[in-house]
């Protein structure tokens, strides 16, 4: 190695390490198929303890019973939220939800747990969406079967 002024570290650009998936939604397929094909939300209910899970899960973690699908209205109440001015990787609702992005925990009617999702605020003004705000689901025009196929808007 030749003497002389110190050289900076050598850097290599890599963007080749992108594994591709044909990802199975498995036991959650009915939920995402209903979202994609019928613009409807389903929740999952334990046949033993009757707890209704949202987001849905295939099995009840308390009873180890296979849950059953139940339809829900898609309306609910915000229990917590924050106005986000930060466009992280997560927001793939481009054209539907921009900044400020209201990231909320929503208690959907007929369910026992809360789902976290984006709410479209009525205006840029902070604070119009808050805990207690009634919301309903809206579906995007183009859906492929992900959580980002829908979002929430204030009711009325």
């Amino acid at each position, binding site marked *: 190695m030749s003497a002389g002024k110190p050289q900076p570290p050598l850097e290599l650009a890599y963007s080749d390490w992108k594994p591709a998936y044909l990802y199975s939604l498995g036991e959650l397929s009915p939920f995402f198929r209903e979202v994609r094909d019928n613009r409807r939300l389903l929740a999952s209910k334990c046949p033993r303890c009757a707890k209704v899970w949202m987001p849905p899960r295939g099995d009840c973690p308390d009873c180890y019973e296979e849950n059953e699908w139940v339809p829900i209205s898609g309306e609910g109440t915000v229990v917590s939220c924050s*106005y*986000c001015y930060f466009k992280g*990787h*997560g927001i793939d609702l481009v054209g539907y939800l921009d900044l400020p992005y209201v*990231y909320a*925990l929503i208690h959907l009617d007929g369910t026992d747990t809360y*789902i976290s999702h*984006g709410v479209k605020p009525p205006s840029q003004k902070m604070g119009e969406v808050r*805990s207690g705000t009634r919301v309903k689901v809206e579906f995007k025009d183009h859906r492929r079967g992900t959580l980002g196929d829908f979002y929430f808007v204030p009711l009325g």
Partner: protein
Amino acid sequence: MRKVAIVGIGTVPWQMRNADKTFRALALQVAKKAFEHARLPRSAVDHVVYSIYCETMLRQQIPSILLQDYLGFQGLSSLRVEAGAATEGYALAAAYAQVAAGLSDITLVVAVQKGGDFYDFETRSRGDGFQNGLAISMDTTWLQPVMPGVPPMLTTFCLAPHIERYGGPTPEQLAMVSVKNYDNAYRNPEAQLHQKVTVDDVLNSRIIAWPTTTRMCCLYSDGACAMILASEERAREITDKPIWISGIATSSYAIHRAEAGSIGRMMGTHIAAGRAYKMAGVTKPSEEIDLAQVHDLITGTEIMAYEELGLCGLGEGGRLVEEGIVAPDGKIPVNTDGGRIACGHVGGVSGAYGACEIVRQLREEAGDRQVRIRNGRGVMQCIEGHASLSAVAVLERG
């Protein structure tokens, strides 16, 4: 079970990016420093635990195989631990268990992580690259498609419901934590930032997720540190300043399974703290703990950690920072190194660095930032991204 002590630590300065060293060389650097600190030959080690949180960040799967070779531990047993940003606490628990059980006399814990090599070629930003790379570590079905990032998630699941339930902390109290941690980092030569900020600076910095602003959020960094754990018999031979792990516990309490009882709290920390205190015989943490290193991913989680660790009652955390109780000259200084807010943060390392900071303070080797030690006891807490996985360790001198 045998008593276990930390008998040596090795740390390096935090940097947003350390392009001069690969993760292998960083690991060797901190291991070497730990051996020097303990005045031990490398051959004394019989087991190695690797605290490594994310393979995607390293662009390398199964990194422990490569590290075990690079560090020259041919033939030794090793274990790699991964628990999100609580990895450090889980790794310390795994190393503790190995020594306490008598399976190892001297275990080396190596914490290393690089995140600064992520890059977004479209926006030419490391920060965007980091966010993109990190996204897959969230629940890819139920969070990642809609969640804007970790600080917004912790704000929505933990901080905002906490404020609603208890009426605090206030934005000013949240900002005071940043001011304190920046001040602490200013006195830590290994900190990534050496700046002073005011409450107004913090409140006026860009809003990330109200009430959390940029200056209330952690840094992201490349980092590494190491610790050497020894059985009681070996520890007393090695040093006259052993720092005992008198209590250690982990707890998993899924906060993303959001229910009335889980949001607005860090129940995992509450449960782990209860177990760790019981093991250590701590009954009144607010009186028996001298200092704490807690998970300030956002300043809200630092304040909530005061409460879940029992340093004050629920809803009283904001008062601790406002009254200076958690300041370096207060009753229970917190994040004396500058914390994740101003010293440095990357999953797998910052909690271990916090444990090293407590070791330094309890050995009274903390230089300009040395705090007063009364009971000789400190507590370390770390959480994974959602605050679902938590680890708490009680460290003690004597």
